[in-house]
């Protein structure tokens, strides 16, 4: 008998600390390598030390007799297991894609290609036995550069792909039209740029545990997977040839992903097939870091030639882009989408560019496969268009901030179609973000300081770099992404089930799954507000295909805008049913019922309250339900978004370059990001911090290097420069909020924006620092050596 309905604290927008943290901070997390199972065996894989070779012979006899060995197998033992699926065959995949087998047969195409496996009682025993497997190789020449791989005389990887070309793709206006526009421009700039290969390096490597039940014929896979339902479907349908429901995929706590854990990998099918071979004992495989570096997907690796046309006052009139995209030794699960749809169609950036032509050639080389890595195509696009802005500034004398301002799409233009086949940008206010960043960093003062230093010949060169970015995420409307020839031929909706138990506790089961994003916290926050149930009474479950409705998984910054909206809509359905039942319980008309803050009452009679908990109990015990109503408060939604979402903003980096040593120090970093409405600012800021660190690292430190023999020279953390705490600056974050009209909560997504924005901001800053010396462009990573060589010339 509550006289009034008290208003509990709003959870959405609150910087709530995460409920995931206590277990993760006290060693009580459960990551893949922590999973304890009875009868567990361990797998060690024999790999090719050569980039390209025929397998002449494999002798497993010595290995088979060693202590603890349960079995030794080669590719010949798994001829009935199909190669991994190529799930994205975007228009332009002109040649039949070649995907990896669980173990290579006949020929290997990259260092690390798996050719044999030992299963043993302990990991040490498995490794000992793997070292006793003797392989005889017939060496073949290797090629690692994507351009060179297409030239006559280059080593051929696969007969299905002459000249190693697996796809040719175009977007935008036709080349002749853009050539004409270039010719008619006041100013023309040509530039070649490299977006160097990166190694994602989540702190947890990948792993799989496969278990086969000989009694039921069911498989269970524990895997470091960003998309368990997708893996279940693809492994069942395309690799193992069993009905989908015969495989259960469970994802334990996951130590980062950044995209490289999206794909269907050989070890997932291998451990399942091995378990069947060893009578149903579970088989575990966990990559060591070297294996992770050799055979888990890499990112980026574009070689691009740019032709730019502009007017004298800094308007971009035409851009012609030719990109060679290195796809590695085989075709990865969604490899085709990254350098096409997610790259080419974002080349306009935040700007109105009347003429764009983009041509992409996807190429096989004797290197690790390349697929999505934080940003997946959008960092490559942002890097191009943000370098274009600075190149236009350099050629016309217009200030780089002014170039951006003059070319911006305006707020009143949205929804805005950039004319190159991307979905219309949902909402944006690019100029406000730019101005906030310029004010925050003190742009005018910095330019004055830069001029003063140049005047007096200061040895510390000051550089200011801008990046006004927009990105496409919240993937994706199924009718767009599923289009034959455009996308991956399957949907990209998301699911959510919401149950209110008779105790009043709420369980949300989502097809999204976290690997650091804090879903268990943010999803509970939004349900708490929408349903009026205390935050602590809500639990978010995920990561098990037995129980979670089919979900497409977590990547592409989609969990909140797509996964969260599915939850929001399921909560809406629960509310609807609760109102109906409350009306029955209160003997009133449905239209007279108000449900707020977890309490239903008759309009004007707040004393006659039924709480959501009472309603849930009534729905469960079911002895007095209105005619036609089923028991239980349990609603599921499959939500297909009507559009993607488009976060945006401006980042500004300030660097000092030592003129004598070439050493670069980022001394300030300002980020203004617009991710639409914010559910948990603590988590959004954390995503931006981490994103900036990765993008900055591409600009200054990271770069995967293969020598001409196809050996990965940067094969460990001693050689590949992941940044450390003293390598990164303090990030000054700020926000604008432009809600997205695409979903009811107005959210855009935040997981990748930081990375997309930061690489061009930092690279532009370094190049700006040396521009007065006649240096127009430098490729990344902008190491001291690279700067020193440029400055010495």
């Amino acid at each position: 008998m509550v006289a009034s309905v008290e208003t509990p604290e709003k959870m959405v927008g609150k910087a709530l600390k995460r409920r995931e943290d206590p277990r993760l901070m006290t060693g009580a997390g459960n990551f893949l390598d922590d999973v304890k199972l009875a009868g567990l065996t361990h797998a060690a894989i024999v790999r090719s030390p050569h980039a390209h070779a025929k397998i002449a012979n494999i002798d497993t006899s010595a290995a088979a007799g060693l202590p603890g060995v349960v079995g030794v197998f080669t590719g010949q033992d798994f001829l009935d297991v199909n190669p991994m699926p190529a799930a994205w065959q975007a228009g332009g995949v002109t040649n039949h894609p070649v995907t990896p087998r669980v173990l290579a047969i006949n020929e290997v195409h990259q260092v690390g290609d798996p050719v044999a496996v030992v299963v043993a009682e302990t990991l040490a025993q498995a490794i000992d036995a793997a070292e006793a497997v003797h392989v005889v190789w017939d060496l073949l020449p290797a090629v690692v550069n994507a351009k060179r791989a297409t030239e006559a005389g280059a080593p051929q990887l696969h007969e299905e792909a002459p000249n190693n070309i697996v796809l040719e793709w175009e977007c935008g206006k036709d080349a002749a039209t853009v050539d004409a526009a270039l010719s008619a421009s006041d100013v023309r700039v040509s530039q070649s740029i490299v977006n160097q290969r990166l190694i994602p390096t989540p702190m947890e490597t990948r792993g799989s545990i496969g278990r086969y039940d000989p009694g039921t014929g069911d498989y269970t896979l524990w895997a470091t997977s960003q998309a368990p339902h997708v893996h279940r479907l693809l492994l069942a349908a395309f690799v193992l040839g069993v009905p989908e429901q015969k495989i259960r995929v469970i994802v334990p706590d996951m130590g980062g992903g950044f995209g490289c854990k999206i794909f269907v990998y050989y070890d997932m099918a291998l451990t399942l097939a091995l378990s069947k071979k060893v009578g149903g004992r579970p088989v575990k495989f966990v990559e060591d870091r070297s294996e992770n570096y050799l055979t888990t997907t890499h990112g980026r690796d574009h070689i691009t030639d740019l032709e730019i046309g502009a007017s004298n006052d800094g308007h971009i009139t035409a851009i012609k882009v030719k990109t060679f995209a290195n796809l590695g030794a085989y075709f990865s699960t969604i490899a085709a989408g990254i350098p096409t749809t997610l790259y080419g169609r974002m080349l306009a950036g935040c700007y109105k560019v009347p003429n764009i032509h983009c041509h992409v050639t996807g190429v096989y080389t004797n290197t690790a496969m390349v697929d999505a890595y934080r940003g997946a195509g959008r960092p490559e696009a942002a890097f191009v268009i943000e370098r274009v802005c600075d190149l236009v500034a350099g050629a016309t004398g217009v200030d780089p901030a002014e170039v951006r301002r003059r070319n911006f799409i305006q707020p009143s233009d949205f929804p805005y179609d950039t004319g190159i086949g991307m979905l219309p940008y949902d909402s944006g206010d690019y100029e406000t973000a730019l101005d906030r960043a310029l004010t925050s960093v003190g742009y005018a003062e910095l330019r004055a300081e830069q001029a003063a230093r140049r005047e007096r010949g200061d040895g510390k060169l000051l550089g200011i770099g801008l990046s006004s970015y927009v990105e496409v995420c919240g993937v994706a409307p199924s009718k767009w992404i599923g289009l034959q020839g455009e996308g991956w031929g399957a949907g990209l909706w998301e699911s959510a089930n919401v149950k209110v138990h008779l105790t009043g506790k709420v369980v949300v089961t989502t097809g999204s799954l976290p690997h650091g994003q804090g879903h268990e916290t943010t999803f509970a926050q939004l349900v708490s507000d929408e349903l009026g149930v205390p935050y602590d009474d809500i639990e978010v479950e995920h990561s098990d295909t037995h129980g979670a409705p089919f979900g497409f998984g977590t990547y592409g910054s989609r969990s909140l805008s797509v996964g969260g909206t599915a939850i929001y809509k399921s909560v809406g359905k629960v509310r609807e049913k609760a109102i109906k039942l409350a009306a029955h319980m209160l003997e009133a008309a449905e239209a007279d019922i108000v449900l707020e803050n977890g309490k239903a009452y008759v309009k004007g009679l707040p004393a006659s309250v039924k709480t959501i908990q009472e309603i849930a109990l009534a729905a469960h015990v079911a002895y007095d339900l209105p005619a036609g109503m089923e028991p239980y408060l349990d609603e599921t939604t499959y939500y297909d978004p009507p559009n993607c979402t488009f976060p945006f903003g401006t980042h500004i980096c300030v660097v000092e370059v030592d003129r004598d040593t070439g050493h670069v120090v980022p001394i300030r970093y300002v980020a203004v990001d617009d991710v639409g409405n914010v559910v948990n600012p603590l988590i959004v800021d954390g995503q931006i911090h981490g994103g900036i660190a990765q993008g900055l690292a591409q600009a200054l430190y990271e770069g995967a290097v293969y020598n001409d023999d196809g050996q990965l020279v940067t094969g460990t953390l001693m050689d590949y420069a992941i940044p450390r705490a003293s390598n990164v600056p303090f990030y000054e974050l700020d926000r604008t909020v432009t809600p997205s009209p695409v979903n009811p909560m107005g959210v855009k997504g935040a997981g990748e924006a930081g990375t997309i924005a930061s690489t061009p901001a930092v690279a532009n800053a370094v190049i700006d620092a040396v521009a007065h010396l006649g240096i127009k462009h430098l490729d990344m990573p902008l190491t001291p050596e690279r700067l020193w060589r440029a400055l010495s010339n």
Partner: protein
Amino acid sequence: MADTVAAPAKVAISVTVNGKAHSAEVEPRTLLVSFLREQLGLTGTHIGCDTSSCGACVVHLNGEAVKSCTIFAAQLDGAEITTIEGLGTDGNLHVVQEGFWEMHGLQCGYCTPGMIMTSTAFLKSNPNPTEDEIRHALDGNLCRCTGYQNIVRAVQYAAAKSNGA
């Protein structure tokens, strides 16, 4: 045709881990991190690299932070070891763990045990550090998720709280 050499004899060790005494036999080549994870079932200490680079394996050995992937269990007869499991529990967190929670100093949580063990040892030797000193102290621990800013804030929080702020 591998030369089969007889496996070297196992070594007996007695160690105290998180206050509990253990007697065990280990192969000479067994790393401390493998001993903790596989033989004692303490899986809070993680492996993130091939050796020595990432810091996910940091534990306290006789009061000092060490990378448990770079020391053999066989060397540790008589040693006292503290792992993340021995530092604090949900409901009774160490002040550094409290700082990580308040400041959102973790995302995926994989580097976190090592980060916390390094931080606690560091604050013992430098209870009032500057931001630069904190960043430098954490240089042996890689994080791919957080960009380090909130980890630095977590350590600052713990330092301030320990100093009575």
